[in-house]
């Protein structure tokens, strides 16, 4: 099988930051150019995010929109392997989870 053509990812249009509370990871995502906001919204639906990482995100994903600032907030439940005090992941806060979101391919 031929290797797939390199696809555009969320990182091509947006920046993000991850935070943790208990076993909930939240990642806020902001487009660099307001013109890309609709594409971001189309790409990062709660269902799409959960489906991309089913082994990691065990609970629901809620999505909040901050339209005037062209951002989304993704709140991913049961997504930190137990949370900062329980996870044996080297990154027990899930600080790097922002780059999981940024790695997702943009919607067609």
């Amino acid at each position: 099988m031929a290797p797939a053509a390199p696809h555009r990812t969320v990182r091509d249009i947006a920046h993000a930051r991850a935070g943790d509370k208990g076993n909930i990871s939240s990642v806020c995502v902001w487009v660099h150019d307001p013109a890309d906001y609709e594409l971001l919204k189309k790409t990062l639906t709660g269902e799409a995010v959960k489906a991309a990482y089913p082994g990691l995100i065990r609970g629901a994903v809620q999505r909040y929109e901050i339209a005037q600032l062209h951002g989304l907030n993704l709140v991913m439940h049961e997504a930190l392997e137990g949370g900062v005090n329980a996870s044996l992941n080297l990154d027990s806060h899930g600080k790097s989870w922002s780059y999981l979101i940024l790695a997702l391919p943009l919607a067609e």
Partner: protein
Amino acid sequence: MADVFRIGTGAGFSADRLGPAVELARFGALDCMIIECVGERTLAFGHRDRLLDPSRGYNAQLEARMRALLPPCRKSGTTIVTNMGVANPRAAAEHTVAIASELGLGGLKVACIEGDEVSDLVDPDTPLMDEPRKLRDMELPIVGMNAYLGIDAILPALQAGADVVIGGRLADPSLSLAPLVHRFGWGLDAWETLGAGTLVGHLLECGMQVTGGYFADPGIKDVPNLADCGFPIAEVTNDGSAVITKLPQAGGCVTLATVKEQLLYEVHDPARYLTPDVTADFSRVSLRQAGENRIRVADAGGRARPKQLKVTIGFDGGFIGEAGVSYAGANAQRRAQLAADVLRERLRPLLRNDAATRVDLVGVNSLFATAGAQPDQDAEDVRVRVALRSPRRDDAELMLWEVESLLCCGPAGGGGFRGAIVPSVVTRSVLIDRTCVKPRVTMLVA
């Protein structure tokens, strides 16, 4: 010109830098400096420290911070508001008074806020937040329980003229909101304004995370002079709106992007950010450039405060052992994979069911292993990393021994063994009726 109240951050977490805080204290012309040092983990570790030694349990860097910050803050009339007391605010306040006396800062008023420790007030049948179990279902020993205290706990200290306010689990944004309420005379039910002030506190509470820290991604998001990044300053006016900025000589940057990333950091529903003081609404916030490294923040709001307070409960989680050995050069990934397989096989019969282990290949697939990232092929610099949690220190020691044994017993070319065992804490949260919690202020004078 409108009355402006200047708040600066002196620390945004327990291990934050001190140098930039000293710069702000000297050159920031601050009315108030907040020093935020408590998280879920730091609180539980504070309780453990206090159990081992009743004179400890506060921030380990308190002495260094106070020695460096008290003199310039005294000189500039800057009030310090901090939760560096962690699990022992009384000892922290007493130690601060002793330092002030030694530094010749006679008459310095240090207020100690207690009453956040609520171990006697929480019913074992209280449901845990975010999971369908009760407190009594947790099988681990409790090390401490603290309610998040808000401005109603801090204001009496400011009204009594404190130069330094030290508490334990003071909610992060309340550190900033209390001095704002004190200065501008906002009502304790002026929810819209309290929400705006809470946003200021939220933007300041993680220190450099709003001035270029935790932000740089070279080539896409570059930050000037990150090594000398400065802490933030908020210039707040009577309506609760503010300009977020930094000292001009400090590194870092304050841009729309840095402020946006911090705006929703660890926020869930932006329209309902719960603190002890208000249900803050960040969903309508507006941001606008107001000069170089100056972002004007406005239009946060709020509604009535929650009737309950969040309580963090720390449990003794036993021990975490962590050990590693590295492989480099040709076929390193397969040699490391073989080492990992050997370790899994050998550790399985040694450990009881209450010990959990994890084996990663750092350099191939570690942080994203559970997320299911595809491992690279043929990585040539790979570290096998084993982590273990157990109630028994012996299990961790056994694991470290097994990893070290790979130096002679494992695949070719393994080197660089390191291992460490640290105590582990586990935390959960519950809610408590706020009327049960009775904060109290004691004023100590140097």
